């Protein structure tokens, strides 16, 4: 099972590699631009990658499956929702950089509904709010932030309802 999962992850990488080969046949310049963009992106997200794996290291020491279940598992209540929502708002960097940590926490007992709420709240980006205010104004930014937080709960509840029962 473990080997199969690892193999499928390398298969994904292989598919991306083949996409690059196909793109290179059509437009070599595009591929070089994309590779250059990747290098810049990797440099930008490197601190986030390090932070995520540092958190995984710390969580392996501090967060036992029993603690995860207590704080973010079934029966964690409002406390679990608040932790997931605050985590989503405060986390930085691209969304996919957080998948390994969430996958780790899920294996230890974190509820899928709270993972969904965490991911939805990543839409609320406090450092980017000044730019949103510049483009769309104060009222729009505040109303949007309010609905994003509200819908993170609705989203989490629906996803939880649809996935937690059968898993």
């Amino acid at each position, binding site marked *: 099972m473990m080997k199969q*999962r690892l193999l*499928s*992850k390398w298969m*994904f*990488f292989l*598919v*991306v590699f083949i*996409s*690059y080969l196909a*793109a290179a046949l059509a437009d070599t310049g*595009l*591929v070089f*631009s*994309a*590779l250059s*963009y*990747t290098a810049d*992106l*990797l440099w930008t*997200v490197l601190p986030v*990658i390090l932070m995520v*794996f540092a958190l*995984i*290291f710390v969580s*392996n*020491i501090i967060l036992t499956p029993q603690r995860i279940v207590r704080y973010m598992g079934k029966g964690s209540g409002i406390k679990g929702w608040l932790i997931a929502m605050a985590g989503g708002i405060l986390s930085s960097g*691209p*969304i*996919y*950089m957080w*998948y*390994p940590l*969430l*996958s*780790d926490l*899920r294996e230890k007992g974190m509820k*899928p509904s709270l993972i*969904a709420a965490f*991911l*939805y709240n*990543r*839409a609320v*980006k406090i450092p*980017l709010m000044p*730019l949103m205010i510049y*483009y*769309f104004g104060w*009222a*729009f930014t505040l*109303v*949007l932030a309010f*609905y*994003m937080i509200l*819908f993170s709960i*609705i989203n989490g509840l629906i*996803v939880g309802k*649809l*996935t937690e029962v*059968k*898993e």
Partner: protein
Amino acid sequence: MVSPIYRESALKTWSSFMQNAPILLGMLLLISLFITAVPKSLYSSFFTGNLVLDPLLGAVFGSLATGNPLNSYIIGGELLAQGVGLVAITAFILSWVTVGIVQLPAESLMLGKRFSVTRNMVSFLTAIIAAILVVLTLGVLA
């Protein structure tokens, strides 16, 4: 002498990194190719001013697009200046960050297919509903 707890945690973290590295690197490459291949000006050419179709298109493009949310604000600002409706732009901005078609293979591999597909579908629908509610609320407040 390193404590066995730290040693075990370091080994687990290294194992997790090695397992996730092909996905993370693959995602970075895929997103870079997508961003380089799709010009930002393409988005504005699809909106027609239709009240029903535009929010749906906004959510579709937001779901397909990827990258820093900052870009969604800039594109959204440009679309607004071009006269595209606020509901469509809000759906676009919301789905940009909450739905990820490009990231879906990676999300499925790490968090499970059922969870990822369900989460993205629900997020797509809620992006449209939330966009309508945002504009309605702004109308009431104005």
